[in-house]
């Protein structure tokens, strides 16, 4: 699965995007976040404030209880500040 990061989430993880194999048992966005936190210190720091992170699955906003299903891309970012 392709993962993209934006703004301070990207800066904390240290990469703009990465591709990971989703392990068995990881079914929802929340499961994936828990898994990413175990990867290394950077990921752990990026996801430290869970509440402050917004998620898009195949470029649509979703909540953490959303199922990953067959989505190809997931993105993590702070609340939007455009306009």
């Amino acid at each position, binding site marked *: 699965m392709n993962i993209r990061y934006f703004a301070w989430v990207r800066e904390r993880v240290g990469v703009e995007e990465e591709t990971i194999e989703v392990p068995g048992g990881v079914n929802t966005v929340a499961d994936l976040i828990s898994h990413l936190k175990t990867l290394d210190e950077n990921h752990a720091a990026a996801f430290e404030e869970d509440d402050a992170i917004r998620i898009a699955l195949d*470029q649509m906003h979703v909540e953490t209880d959303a199922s990953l299903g067959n989505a190809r891309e997931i993105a993590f970012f*702070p*609340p939007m500040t*455009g306009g």
Partner: protein
Amino acid sequence: MQVKPLVRVQAEDFDAGEESRRLTEGRKDVGALVTFTGLCRDEAGTLSALELEHYPGMAEAELGRIAAEAIGRWPLTGLTVIHRFGRIAPGENIVLVVTASKHRRAAFEAADFLMDFLKTRAPFWKKEHRVSGDAGTWVDAKSGDDKDAARWTADPISSR
């Protein structure tokens, strides 16, 4: 026939006059045109630039979804949304919304709605760069923006 909104996400500047003309030129059915331009402030001389990051693809798609929602809610004759990305200096344009309708209320309300949802739903982030040369800091989302957006969903008649 339903209007097709013009949505653009670009690094280049835009011309609000030209975009307004695009929605009125050669037409006799437009009675109201509202344009909103968001500009970069210098924050009392402390800000050297804003760095606008966006999610390519999703930014256009989300602006398109918000524009389609506005077209479904108000009888518009035309709608344009342009949002810039990249480095933007104080005094420069960031965002443009133009709404056209037969009557003013629809044009005003649709523009207000678009900006409220654009600020809370469109994937753009601002980083402030200071004149002092301090490391740039990401702008925090404002809870007031969420409240503004909620006006359009919670009991729309009585709360306005």
